[in-house]
């Protein structure tokens, strides 16, 4: 049986009122978010020259198929993948540990909260510049390493460590933000659970593993997804770090940096850049779906 929906005058009027109130937001969303997304899809199927007289030449899927034999694109994808795989778990774990220590009722913890949170307040561009200064061949980092008797590196000029340098920088900057989210979630866990566990003779470590971690599962899921999206989109740090080139030797070339290079640095590759952008969004979507599937966040309650 087919359902038929009927619209009374009243409900139509209500709807139109609703939409007219939302109109400014819808307009802005359509113009600045939905429009560009659709335009990017459109571009990804064309060979585009925007400068001068704009030309669009339909090339079907060839922009996408070209990605697979573009060694720089593959390198960028590999770098980004490596970056995500290493940064996301570390920053999540670090955020959890920091939050747990801050929630343990130590002395002066509000001071520590502020200190831990400070890195987040710095803009990532400034942060990168400060770290570049510390990573200098004669900079602070190497100074400390040599005092400790450890090997020093040319952090910015050596392709084998440049990406690691960015990872360290980003973990340091992002973990505190997620720490705050964890902190809020930690304070939501009912004390009665801990009391019950204590009666059963659980020590602090066991309480952490068997009560804190499982109760934080939905938040962990959120943190990991945000972390995935954020790290897949790594751009500003590697851009400033390498002066926009993705060097040394393509070692800090990320997918978004490559998109930028194709879109702005060479003429006539805007469509190809759009295709890589579409591919990146698919990769992020898949990663997020996989994460959700494995974390089973709803199963807790």
């Amino acid at each position, binding site marked *: 049986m087919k359902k038929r929906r009927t619209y009374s005058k009243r409900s139509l009027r209500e709807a139109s009122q609703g939409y007219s109130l939302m109109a400014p937001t819808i*307009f*802005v969303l359509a*113009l*600045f*978010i939905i429009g560009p997304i659709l335009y990017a899809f459109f571009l990804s199927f064309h060979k585009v*020259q*925007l*400068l*001068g*007289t*704009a030309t669009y030449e339909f090339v079907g899927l060839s922009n996408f198929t070209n990605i697979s*034999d*573009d*060694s*720089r694109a593959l390198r960028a994808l590999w770098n980004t993948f490596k970056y995500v795989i290493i940064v996301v778990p570390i920053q999540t774990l670090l955020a959890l540990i920091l939050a747990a220590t801050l929630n343990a009722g130590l002395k002066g913890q509000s001071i520590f909260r502020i200190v831990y949170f400070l890195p*987040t307040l710095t803009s*990532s561009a400034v942060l990168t510049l400060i770290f570049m200064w510390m990573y*200098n*061949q*004669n*900079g602070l980092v190497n100074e400390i390493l040599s005092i400790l008797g450890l090997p020093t590196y*040319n952090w*910015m*000029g*050596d*392709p084998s460590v440049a990406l690691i340098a960015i990872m360290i920088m980003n973990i340091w*900057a*992002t973990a505190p*933000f997620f720490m705050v989210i964890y902190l809020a979630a930690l304070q939501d866990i009912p004390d009665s659970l801990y009391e019950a566990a204590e009666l059963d003779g659980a020590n602090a470590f066991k309480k952490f593993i068997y009560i804190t971690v499982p109760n934080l599962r939905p938040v962990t899921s959120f943190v990991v997804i*945000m972390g995935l*999206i*954020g790290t897949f*989109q790594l751009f500003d740090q590697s851009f400033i770090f390498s002066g*926009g*080139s*993705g*060097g*040394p*030797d*393509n070692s800090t070339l990320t997918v978004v940096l490559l998109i930028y*290079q194709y879109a*702005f*640095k*060479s*003429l006539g*590759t805007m469509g190809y850049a759009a295709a890589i952008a579409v591919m990146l969004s698919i990769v992020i979507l898949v990663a997020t779906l996989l994460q959700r599937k494995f974390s089973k966040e709803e199963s807790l309650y």
Partner: protein
Amino acid sequence: MKAKKWLASGVTTMLIGGILSGCSGGSSGSSEGSGDNVEITLAGWGGNPSETRLLKEALDSFEEKHPNIKVKHEVISDQYMDVMKTRLIGGEAPDVFYLDAFEAPALIETGVLEPLDDYVTDEFNVDDFEQPLLEAFQKDGVTYGFPKDYSTLALFYNKKMFEEAGVEVPTTWDELREVSKQLTKDGVVGLGVAPELARMYYIAESLGGEVVKDNKANFGDEKVIEALQPIIDQRNTDKTAAQASDVGANWGGEMFGQEKAAMVIEGNWAIPFLEDTFPNVEYGTAEIPTVNGEKSTMAYTVSYVMNAASEKKEASWKLIEYLTGPEGMEIWTSKGYALPTRKSVAEKLGFDQDEKRAALVAGASYATVWANGVNLPTIMNNFNNQFVSAFLGQRPLDEALKEAEEQANREIGE
């Protein structure tokens, strides 16, 4: 971090939305009659304070001569070409702007630049320009820009270190390698190298190879590899050369100023930098040692070009004519921050007699101009990326360059 960005972009979006709806159609094209006042926009990247002062002086004197034309000077301090291309696409580009020779062919091809030949009068005297520099802005005999200044590369050497080591300034590349060995000691390297195509181009072509052939990358050519091999060997076998980041500096001039390299190959820009930042370093300049018996160097040049979509072309030309004319150029180059592209001005200012700049001026006649076809940016990018790994000794040069050439040509397409 991401959440912060979302918030920021949301706020900007709303602000821009508000602004857009507030002022649409602000700049309507005013017709320019002879008596009307017009305002034209000139855009460029920023220089140091002294350079800014010189340009201001030149613009003031222009406005004095043309009281009905006002010049609005815009400085785009970062990512100049990205900003300019975006504004050209959006139809909001300035009337007159700087254009590096390196980017010129691609921009000329798209047709966004106004051909200037019809504006030129006999009085302007085009033949006065150094020909190779002018040719960088020409296509099929049509001129799209007049070079405002240029710089070449020369060998900067530290006088004190040379004295202590008891060596002479090298005149051939073989001598340079020998001298470097004696200069390298106590954390100082003989030669500071910038391992990038913009600085290596003349060496790469010194044995007759071509870096760019038919608008495609060709630096995997045996002759090019053979020509570049000595630089790699000097770092990895002799251990007498280094790049700036190896010693914790940002670029060659700084490396030289900090006395971590006894020699660097830099351009005119390093002279005011060394004067301002490292006044105690005693140095001299010399022409670049001959490679394979021939003199060579690079020249970098920038021109003023006119936006083809400009509505004030007459006034824009007046500005270009003045700034690249003898009078404006003399003001602009008078302090030696940049070298004049007009022979007459160069003669008048006497830079060929200047102790520090003579070597740079001498290079102008045989220099290779840093510009070659529309695909040079792509070719350069791939070269730089792989050349560094060879320079650092991580892989053989021929393998690195051949792979980079393939990748570059794949990006260029058919």
